């Protein structure tokens, strides 16, 4: 038994993600937040919107993180906040990775004029101040967390487009791609069957590196009042309540720490994933 175990351990590559302490810390933090989010009704000591306590209670045994301006328990609101921040950041990354990958794939596969047009568009988006555009779109669509996700997706896809285009250009040179085209595969089939396997790894790593940024941008929009709306418990908008009452340190401090730990954990994981993958992928991601 132990022999098998040993063999199994040895067979894992030396730089497997589980050998990296930071990655383990990151996974543990995200798992904790996930459990808190899923079981929020059972874990949270109070209803996140109940206004039963007193205003601005300092942290105590009854209210671990104190209460806010509207007499609500901050720790309970943070637990419920995980239900907004985490899934929406993941959704945001999924949407922008999909959009960016499709544009990058078309660009790299079609080549020529289509390619140079799409890449110029990508350049323009890179030059664009993301948060300004996101603010404008979020304001125009109406302040809602769903609209904030759309707004950030519109500014976040170009990194994926550039990455995927580069990967496709590289993969296209393989003989099996030419062979598949000669056998009469359609463009779509070539892309999905022959080219896609070259993409998933790097795109996944980039996406994992971007989750933290997505969470930062989304909570930033909420902080400005352009994302989740009251009374929803969302970390960014909770910090903004702390900004109004900055002399009550606990109101803004704890929701901010929640954002920091979640973003940090995602970055630990993303960083370790990149290091654990082969150097080629790491290089493609850096270029």
């Amino acid at each position, binding site marked *: 038994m132990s022999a098998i175990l040993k063999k199994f351990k040895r067979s894992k590559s030396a730089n497997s993600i589980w050998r990296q302490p*930071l990655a383990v810390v990151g996974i543990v933090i995200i798992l904790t937040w996930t459990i808190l989010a899923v079981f929020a009704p059972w874990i949270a000591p109070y209803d996140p919107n109940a206004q039963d306590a007193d205003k601005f209670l300092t942290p105590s045994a009854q209210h671990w993180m104190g209460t806010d301006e509207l007499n609500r328990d901050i720790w309970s609101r943070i637990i419920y906040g995980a239900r907004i921040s985490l899934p929406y950041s993941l959704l945001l990354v999924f949407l922008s990775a999909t959009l960016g990958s499709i544009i990058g794939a078309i660009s790299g596969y079609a080549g020529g004029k289509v390619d140079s047009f799409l890449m*110029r*568009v990508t*350049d*323009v*988006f*890179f*030059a*664009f*101040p*993301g*948060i*300004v*555009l996101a*603010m*404008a*779109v*979020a*304001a*125009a*669509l*109406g302040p809602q967390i769903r609209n904030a996700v759309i707004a950030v997706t*519109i500014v976040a896809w170009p990194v994926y487009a550039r990455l995927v285009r580069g990967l496709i250009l590289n993969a296209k040179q393989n003989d099996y791609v030419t062979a598949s085209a000669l056998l009469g595969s359609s463009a779509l089939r070539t892309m999905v069957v022959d080219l896609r396997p070259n993409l998933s790894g790097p795109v996944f790593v980039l996406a994992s590196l971007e989750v*933290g940024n997505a969470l*930062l941008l989304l*909570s*930033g929009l909420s*902080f*400005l*009042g*352009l994302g989740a709306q009251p009374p929803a418990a969302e970390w*960014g908008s909770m*910090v*903004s309540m*702390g*900004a109004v009452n*900055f*002399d009550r*340190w606990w109101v*803004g*401090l704890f*929701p*901010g720490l929640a*954002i*920091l730990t979640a*973003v*940090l954990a995602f*970055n*630990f994981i993303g*960083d370790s994933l990149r290091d654990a993958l082969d150097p080629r992928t790491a290089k493609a991601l*850096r270029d």
Partner: protein
Amino acid sequence: MRPVSGERKTRKRPLSGTGFAPFIIRRLLTSIILVFGVTFIAFSITQLVPGDPVAANLGQSAYSDPEIVAAFEKEFGLDQPVPVQYYKYVTNLLQGDLGVSLSSKRPVAEDLKEYFPATLEIALIAVLLALVVGLLLGIISAVTRDRLADQIIRVFSLTGVSMPAFWTALTAFYIFFFVLGWAPGTGRLEPGGEAPPTVTGLFTIDALIAGDFSTFRQAFSYLLLPAVVLAIYAIGVLTRFTRASMLEILGNDYVRAARAKGLPEFTVIRRHVLRPALLSIITVAGVAFSSLLAGSVLVENVFSWPGLGQYAYRAAVGLDLPGIMGVSMVVATVYITMNLIVDILYRIIDPQMKDSA
């Protein structure tokens, strides 16, 4: 710089040469096209999404009066078809006219002249700080790879890029203003403080030009905290990037050769590792600078810093199209100019590098 041409002279397209002049012309043209691309995308997106700038800028009672609405639309050209609006915007832009802001009712160019220097001032300090600290930490991290110092710096720099700027600003403000009383408060000067005569719009520089040292000290004390908060993210980015690019170079054979011939480690690092790494670090610093301009939105909000970020926020919330376009143009132009400068620097420092764009 002597043009390096010759081997590819047979090409027919006039701008496709590898010489220095065609390179610059080509890059300039691309940059100008990019700036117009930015106006086009900003314009289309703000038109595509629903949202009524008239409703956002007129009061409830004025909005219910069709005559006032019509007058407002006429004044700002909102009654014209969208392509006409865009055409007008671009032709005006070519004459340096950025339109009139819907919310401040002033020319956008004037607004920007007032708000941009405030942001430039903190962003410059932030990027300088980030360059010094980020380079230093990155070098230490790379040289002590996988040892304790490296681990600490890695966690530190990852934390830097993971901190929500608005929260960092708030926490710093609480500690340094409310608890310690070291920071002076919000804004650029104390209430009622008189701004130095405008030359650059940067209060510190203008105060120095006017020889007014007390205003200089005051302006500097007000900008220090927002600048440091703004710098934290950039420090994280630059530390990580410096470490990565140095590690990549450390693996090269010529570094082994330099060590093998007995050069002191300090010389190896300085001459054979840091110098080649510097090129790409400059690139990242340039990009970081323009992202600081945009990132200032959240920090300025907390410090009531009357800069571009605050202006952008007000423009966005008020669906003030000329305002949004103006801010986007400024930030995009800085970004594009930075890239242009970096590309030209590359050519000067490393003439071997043929332009690939």
